[in-house]
């Protein structure tokens, strides 16, 4: 049996440009070695993993297996000792039942892109009831968030041009009093449809993200149907509640907390992944900050 090819993760994987870049480097490392079938992911050199980023990592592993029949291993001792969050959130648990005794994870799951009932059930019973969600959420507010997240799920089903699964997961960070929720689709990303709808006026990933966040929709030009409220409403919620919205679509990385910085407008990723990843950061008690 061949020795596994090793990919060593470095420093940390947080929900930011650097963390996303490192995971996409892992993806491209494996993608460009189609004849290597077994990879060992070395966690010994990193000191932190944002648990919600497992949704993205799982999407990558899924795609690599589908394309190249590649499989992956990791050192279980290191995982249990340093990153047990990857077991508590269900990402690496083998056949054992998932137990999150710290109640800090929102389980890593995937959904068929037509499974609206499953997705809604997960959002209502795993995310909105989580102890990490903002304290001021009344039922009406929860319904609005639930429906805005449903909008993202629906966008994948309609816009992303894919039948591949939709990956989700979250993590609560008690010391920072924030919960990060990650959603990953494996479709075409924003640009192809937006470029078509604008007759090529929008011609790069960051411009496509900006265009969508303004409330524009390809449906008007391509299907003669209005659209564009979902993402805009989520951005509005984040702005009003000290939350953060991150949109990563193919090579474009944009985050609402990069506005009024030198990275306003977004950054370009060196090695794009497929589709679109949306990260939402909820602040538990916005009144304090």
């Amino acid at each position: 049996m061949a020795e596994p090819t090793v990919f060593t993760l470095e420093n940390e994987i947080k929900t930011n440009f650097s963390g996303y870049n490192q995971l996409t480097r892992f993806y491209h490392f494996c993608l460009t070695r189609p004849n290597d079938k077994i990879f060992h992911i070395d966690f010994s050199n990193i000191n932190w993993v944002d648990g919600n980023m497992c949704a993205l990592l799982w999407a990558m592993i899924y795609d690599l297996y589908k394309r190249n029949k590649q499989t992956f291993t990791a050192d279980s001792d290191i995982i249990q000792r340093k990153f047990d969050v990857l077991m508590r959130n269900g990402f690496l648990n083998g056949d054992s039942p998932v137990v999150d005794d710290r109640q800090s994870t929102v389980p890593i799951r995937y959904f068929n892109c037509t499974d609206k009932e499953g997705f809604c059930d997960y959002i209502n019973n795993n995310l909105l009831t989580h102890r990490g969600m903002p304290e001021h959420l009344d039922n009406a507010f929860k319904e609005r968030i639930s429906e805005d997240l449903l909008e993202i799920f629906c966008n994948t089903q309609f816009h992303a041009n894919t039948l591949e699964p939709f990956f989700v997961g979250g993590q609560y960070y008690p010391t920072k009093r924030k919960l990060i929720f990650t959603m990953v689709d494996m479709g075409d990303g924003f640009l192809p449809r937006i470029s078509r709808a604008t007759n090529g006026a929008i011609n790069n990933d960051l411009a496509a993200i900006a265009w969508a966040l303004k409330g524009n929709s390809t449906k008007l030009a391509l299907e003669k149907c209005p659209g564009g409220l979902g993402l805009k409403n989520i951005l509005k919620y984040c702005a009003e509640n000290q939350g953060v919205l991150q949109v990563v679509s193919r090579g474009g990385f944009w985050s609402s907390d990069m506005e009024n910085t030198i990275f306003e407008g977004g950054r370009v990723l060196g090695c794009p992944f497929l589709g679109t990843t949306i990260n939402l950061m909820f602040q538990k008690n916005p009144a304090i900050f």
Partner: protein
Amino acid sequence: MRIVVKNIINSPIAAFHTDGSLVFEKLEQSLNKGVSILVGFEGITQCSTQFLNASVGKLYLQHSPEIVDSLLSFDYAGLPHLAFKLAEVRENAIHSKTYDAILEEATT
């Protein structure tokens, strides 16, 4: 005339564009005949704007707002903020139509 969304889409979750298109067909038929129609949301637990855009918003693109407003009414049932969302969808559709017309005029 009354239609019940849940019965048309066979689900308590009115989410997808395709769900909305099914409802749009019923609404469009009534509007074309000048028949008033009440849209009932009883049994619907969640409703996305994608659904509302495809079912109701599209009506405002294809007909004058005055005609749609005069013939279309809603039973919001257990969804208290649905009225607000429908107003938002209506506004969005009417402005989309206005913007589209301006663009067309500007480019001819």
